[in-house]
């Protein structure tokens, strides 16, 4: 009896050791980034690497002072919010139609945008947007980010609508409501959890997007990932500044994830599990 309790204890200890090791591996790059962002250049290049140092805010002061960081922050937010908003406007009715009328081919058509390599549209966009004088415009950037957000919205929402029993709008229709009315007034309000999932995930993917913005935006509409990347192109890498910028760009996505944790997990694992 005591032997089995002993083995049980050992397995529990072993189990928690493994969990802690996994947690450390996952967290370490974040912690190193965070601590480096509070180090002076001297402390960063110190050998052996310093674990204990006097923290400084000078990197953050430099990032938010010298660079037009606030503008890039606004650009990223505007592009993400508008692209996600418009994708919901286009995607919600489409997803409803896919779920209710079993339009599988339509679903595949829209989800192709998720499968296709982004660069196979980016190259022609570059040519077309240059012709139209839309380079470095919010319009081009928002359109491109909509192609990221729309498939996510359709993917998540068509599975979500499929879980809502059709009786709901059918009984409303028997009472004389149109299907349109039933969709806007009955189905959508019931779909808040799905919409939160779709909104959070597609905003994060837009926020993190690098390739589209790298090509389509210049000084005026530059988004945060480009600003962070540009830090590297200086002759001598300002590691403290880069790390502060990296913290600044990751913080909003991480905060969003923490707040909507349940929804993010659902969105990322959806479809795969449904089968």
């Amino acid at each position: 009896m005591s032997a089995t309790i002993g083995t049980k204890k050992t397995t529990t200890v072993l189990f928690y050791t493994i969990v802690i090791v996994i947690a450390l591996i996952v967290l370490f790059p974040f912690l190193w980034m965070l601590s480096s962002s509070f180090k002076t250049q001297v402390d960063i290049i110190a050998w052996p690497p310093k674990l204990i140092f006097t923290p400084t805010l000078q990197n953050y002061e430099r990032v938010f002072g010298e660079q037009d960081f606030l503008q890039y922050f606004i650009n990223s937010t505007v592009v993400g919010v508008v692209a996600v908003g418009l994708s919901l406007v286009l995607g919600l009715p489409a997803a409803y139609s896919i779920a209710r009328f079993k339009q599988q081919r339509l679903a595949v058509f829209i989800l192709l945008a998720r499968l296709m390599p982004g660069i196979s549209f980016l190259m022609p966009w570059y040519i077309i947007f240059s012709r139209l004088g839309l380079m470095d415009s919010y319009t081009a950037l928002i359109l491109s980010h909509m192609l990221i957000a729309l498939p996510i919205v359709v993917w998540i929402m068509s599975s979500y609508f499929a879980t809502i029993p059709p009786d709901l709008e059918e009984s409303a229709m028997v009472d004389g409501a149109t299907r349109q009315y039933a969709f806007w007034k009955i189905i959508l309000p019931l779909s808040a959890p799905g919409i939160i999932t779709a909104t959070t995930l597609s905003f994060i993917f837009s926020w993190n997007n690098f390739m589209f913005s790298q090509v389509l935006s210049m000084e005026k509409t530059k988004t945060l990932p480009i600003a962070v990347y540009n830090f590297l192109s200086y002759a001598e890498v300002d590691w403290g500044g880069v790390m502060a910028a990296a913290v600044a760009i990751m913080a909003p996505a991480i905060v969003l994830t923490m707040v909507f944790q349940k929804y993010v997990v659902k969105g990322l694992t959806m479809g795969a599990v449904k089968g």
Partner: protein
Amino acid sequence: MIHSSFADRNLHRLFPLPAMIFVALLMVFPVLYTLFLSFTNWNLTSGQPPAFVGLRSYMRVLSEPRFLEALGRTFAFTFFAVAIEAVIGVATALILNRSFVGKSVAKTLLLLPLVATPVAVGIVFNLFYDPTIGLANFVLTSLGLPPALWVSHASTVIPALILVDVWQWTPMITLIVLAGLAGLSEEPVEAARIDGASEWQIIRFVTLPMVMPVILTAVILRLIDALKTFDIIFAMTGGGPGYASETLNIMGFKYSFEYFRMGQAAVILVALFVVVFCCSLLIMKLREKSEA
């Protein structure tokens, strides 16, 4: 009164229409344009309109050693990254698949790499890999091993990049498989336990086969993205040193936006699309088999 307005009768056409028009304009049309350009040898800086040259751009690009190397590298990067992610991801999911104190915290932690901006992740790993000040070499030398050049040397750059991809995306497989495991019925496991199967036998012959379709779906999702990996490679090495970490996506990007050889770039993009498409089909076939 039976309501049957025009809008309601045609809802199945009207509701998806705006999204379809959008996708047609922003995806289908550009892709067809890319396909058209692949039959030209158009150079954007030449000032000439695109001239049709048949398959000449294809023959030129497909026979170029740089292209073939990029193709092989794309496969190698994807294969090793996704294989390692699948093994570690599934193992982690099997370990975490029980109720324990701090499970929800653990799941939250697993989400963090997935939402971290890839460019920024790449830059943080560049600091690790820095040959003179990086932590990676500190660890090596502390263990009495010689320091390495990591992303600055042709022989180590791909494994070093794979490590970044593994760190960032393994949690996605873990979370998907965990969700799949949570949905399994307990009965087969209980039955096997009553029959005297060991824990390992239960995992190997009961749990894994049941969760296999979910694992393969997770692998498809990862595979599609790994073949297209761009941000970390572009930010960390730009495809270098030399062309040592140049994948099809990076090569297509350079041909498009650095050399402006749109005809040849289009060929590379078509090739990348074919690769992504064929690999996805292959795994989907495997998945059907595992469900049968």
